[in-house]
């Protein structure tokens, strides 16, 4: 893993993106097992319909987890002090999700150097599923 230096990072720059999918029902079953979240809206198409949905939807946390790889693949996660997201749309099996990140803010105050990176997960049509940001601390 290469080291990212504070001075090499500029506001507005994009960091390497990742893509995953098309999401398969099995991916959600696997995530259900790993996370322990077996809510039928994610795992059981029949029950998901009974609950008023068109079919299963991905766990929001599955998308947040995949999106976190943009962060962990770019910088040592030990430097990350906060990661937060808002769930904006349901992702469903069959969709391919593109996860991107962009340097939103760079601050240097009282010897404390931080950068804020905006993140987004959207399908191939550009419909946003999850957006958020993470904070990196440079010592």
């Amino acid at each position: 893993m290469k080291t990212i230096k504070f001075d090499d990072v500029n506001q507005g720059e994009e960091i390497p993106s990742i893509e995953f999918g098309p999401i398969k029902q099995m991916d959600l079953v696997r995530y259900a097992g790993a996370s322990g979240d077996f809510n039928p809206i994610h795992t059981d198409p029949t029950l998901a319909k009974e609950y008023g949905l068109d079919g299963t939807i991905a766990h929001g946390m599955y998308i947040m987890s995949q999106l976190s790889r943009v962060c962990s693949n770019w910088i040592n996660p030990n430097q990350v002090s906060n990661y937060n997201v808002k769930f904006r749309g349901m992702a469903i099996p069959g969709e391919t999700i593109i996860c991107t990140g962009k340097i939103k803010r760079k601050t240097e105050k009282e010897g404390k150097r931080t950068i804020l990176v905006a993140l987004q997960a959207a399908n191939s049509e550009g419909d946003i599923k999850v957006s958020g940001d993470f904070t990196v601390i440079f010592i």
Partner: protein
Amino acid sequence: MVQLSKDIIGTKLSNFEYEIGREKIKEFLLAIGEENPIYHDQEEAKKVGYSDTPAPLTFITSINFWGNPQWLDDFDKLGIDVKKLLHLKESYDYVKPIYPNMKVNYSSQVADVKIGKMNMVTLVAILKDEKDDTLLKQESTIIIRPE
């Protein structure tokens, strides 16, 4: 089922202990497609300052569910209908790395409730290690879809 109301603000949920299994972390990494070697290879982890392969950034979810099989009852008692539950926001403050074999303590409480067209509940939680040092702070906001 009790009606969801602002009265539950401040209510503490199940407080539990959980031992983090190395294999459970591996299973989680596989499920989320995380292939960064620092999560899989102790030598790679040590090169960047960890003492062992850490848990990935969102592993707390696994602690939330596997660590607390009572969570459905907890939500039921609060008046939250899990059939109508949707996740709105999730936030983590990372204080110290989470490692395999750690015995952790998880405690959470209701921080806020908004009653309206969409009812909204915010939970805050703290994950601590055996020395009572904070590892992570979590804030989750869920909405409950109307009838």
